[in-house]
């Protein structure tokens, strides 16, 4: 037991040592793109109708008039202290954007990931178990078509069917205006906030608003899981220990459910981490489609207003989230599966 502890710790340290250069590279890349690349961030944020004195004043306030190297050092320093700057257009600290809109994104992506994993594992297991049958073909076909489906088109279809034709579910925003006005923001995750107060009518309203966006995003991502689980089931079914289990006379049903499926699911944890990038990209599109007030939605808002400072701050946060998540997932899978550590 003790030796396992040490090797996990050393794995953690190696993994952490690899993360730092990655973060640094990403931060430097963002800096190069947003500050060094041609174009004047400040005047384009302001639309070019502002007196030069004002532009100078803002430049000075944001530190954009200093030499590039100083700017770079300040930028790294601030980022390390989790200060991602202030937006130019509405003077909101980026941390505030993250707190409020990030909560909405978290609600959406968590629900979507849950749906993706549930649908993906189920269809993948069934397809792999019944390889080359009609079920398998159907699941694979679904996997390919759902992969080819842009999130926003699936969202369009969902809005058309469930919002407009059937009229069952709301198609935009995170809650009805009334619920939104009455909500007491604590975590900013509406589902949690309404549940904490015990306002179940509001909870139900928030939940209804979540169904379409989360399902849309979840289904699109489920394609990857279907493929992965299917391949893994097929591979484990060929493994020696499955053969051994059969030889020992264990019923085929138990061989499949107890031995093959369990081992086929281990890599899924790792892949959830790899899908973070896909999930966040999908979230930006889903939020735009359903007018969901998440980070992606704010990012597009600031992009449209050419607010370089806001865009830079949000992108940095995205980079940190991605690196952090992949680190966490790697550690979790290392804890689950000792083979990864070596």
């Amino acid at each position, binding site marked *: 037991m003790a030796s396992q502890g040490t090797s996990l710790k050393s794995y953690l340290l190696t993994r952490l040592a690899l993360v730092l250069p990655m973060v640094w590279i990403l931060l430097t890349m963002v800096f190069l793109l947003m500050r060094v690349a041609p174009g004047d961030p400040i005047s384009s944020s302001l639309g070019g109708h502002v007196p030069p004195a004002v532009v100078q004043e803002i430049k000075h306030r944001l530190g954009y008039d200093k030499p590039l190297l100083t700017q770079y050092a300040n930028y790294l320093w601030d980022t390390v202290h989790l200060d991602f700057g202030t937006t130019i257009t509405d003077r909101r600290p980026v941390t505030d954007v993250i707190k409020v809109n990030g909560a909405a994104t978290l609600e959406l992506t968590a629900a979507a990931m849950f749906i993706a994993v549930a649908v993906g594992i189920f269809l993948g297991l069934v397809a792999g178990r019944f390889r080359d049958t009609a079920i398998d073909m159907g699941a694979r076909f679904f996997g390919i078509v759902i992969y080819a489906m842009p999130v926003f088109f699936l969202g369009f279809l969902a809005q058309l069917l469930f919002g407009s034709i059937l009229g069952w579910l709301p198609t935009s925003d995170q809650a009805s205006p009334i619920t939104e006005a009455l909500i007491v923001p604590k975590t900013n995750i509406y589902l949690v906030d309404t549940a904490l107060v015990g306002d179940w009518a509001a909870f139900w309203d928030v939940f209804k608003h979540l169904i379409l966006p989360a399902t849309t995003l979840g289904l699109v991502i489920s394609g990857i899981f279907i493929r992965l689980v299917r391949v893994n089931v097929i591979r484990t079914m060929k493994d020696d220990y499955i053969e051994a289990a059969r030889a020992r006379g264990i019923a085929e049903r138990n061989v499949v459910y107890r031995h093959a499926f369990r081992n086929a699911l281990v890599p899924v944890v790792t892949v959830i981490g790899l899908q973070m990038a*896909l999930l966040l990209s999908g979230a930006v599109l889903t939020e735009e489609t359903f007018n969901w007030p998440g980070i992606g939605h704010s990012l597009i808002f600031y992009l449209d207003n050419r607010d370089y400072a806001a865009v830079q701050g949000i992108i940095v946060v995205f980079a940190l989230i991605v690196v952090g998540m992949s680190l966490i997932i790697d550690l979790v899978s290392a804890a689950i599966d000792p083979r990864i550590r070596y």
Partner: protein
Amino acid sequence: MAIAAAREARRKPRLSRLRRAVAPIGDARGTARLMLWTGTLLTGLFIFLAFFAPVVSPYNFDQFQANGVRFDQLAHPSSEHLMGTTVQSTDVMSRVIYGAQTELEVVFMALILGLAIGVPLGVISGYFAGPLDRGLVLVMDSLFAFPYLLLAIVIAFLLSNTVGKGVFSAAIAITVVYIPQYFRVVRNHVISVREEPYVEAARALGARPFTIMRRYVFFNVVQNVPVIATLNAADAILTLAALGFLGYGLQPTDKAEWGYDVSRALSDASSGIWWTGLFPGLAIVLLVTGLTLLGEGLNETINPVLRRRRVEKVELGTPTSIVESEVGP
């Protein structure tokens, strides 16, 4: 004569090598064959539409009147407008057909750019190893970990502020996303090829690194590229459509683009108008499905580990590390 014969002899191995590379496609059986054919058909259809758009399309993509009569706004699909009209009175079907042109144009350019940068970088990095390799891998891995769409959006945003929107800007924004993928696949393959006896033999004979890379390494590595390129083309279409949807694709007045059309159609959906969004959306799904099937079919037929022939196979057990490639990128 002698020269011609010698030239013939020199050309022959190239040809036979080519034939050997294509041979598995004829051998494809079962699912792989079905995938290949469906994929080829779907992709072919859109390539046809793209090339013959002016002939096939009933109107121009931005045409809102004919013979001085303005088309109806948001007209239902009818014999006059098979897929209806948009809020700007343009013909949906014409926009879908011209859209094929746009998508293929941008994606083709993005692929060429991505291959031209990613493959040589991968070959050089894999062959020379050392600090250069480690540095490049780190940069590419960081790029790869980053949400691809955000990267494309930021590049497209910066380009739209400096160069302006256009086919080339969109292609660059997409390319940046895919370079790391080509780089990775090619580099990893080069590393395994580098230790092969024939490469070592060439090195022992005194061939310069550049010659070895060009003549021995490149051709062995490049065989994987069609599969990745096709699958990436599918992905690139989705990225372009996403950029268009968010308003960072092409200038709407210059080109018809499916993603942009779907974004315009979102507001129609609430009033039950389905045709403005359904058809461009379906076009995306069909083209991406076609390219994916083509890529997957190629993968299953070319990749010997996944290949299934009718001949009864001898069970030797499959090395698990290679089977993983079945998951694809």
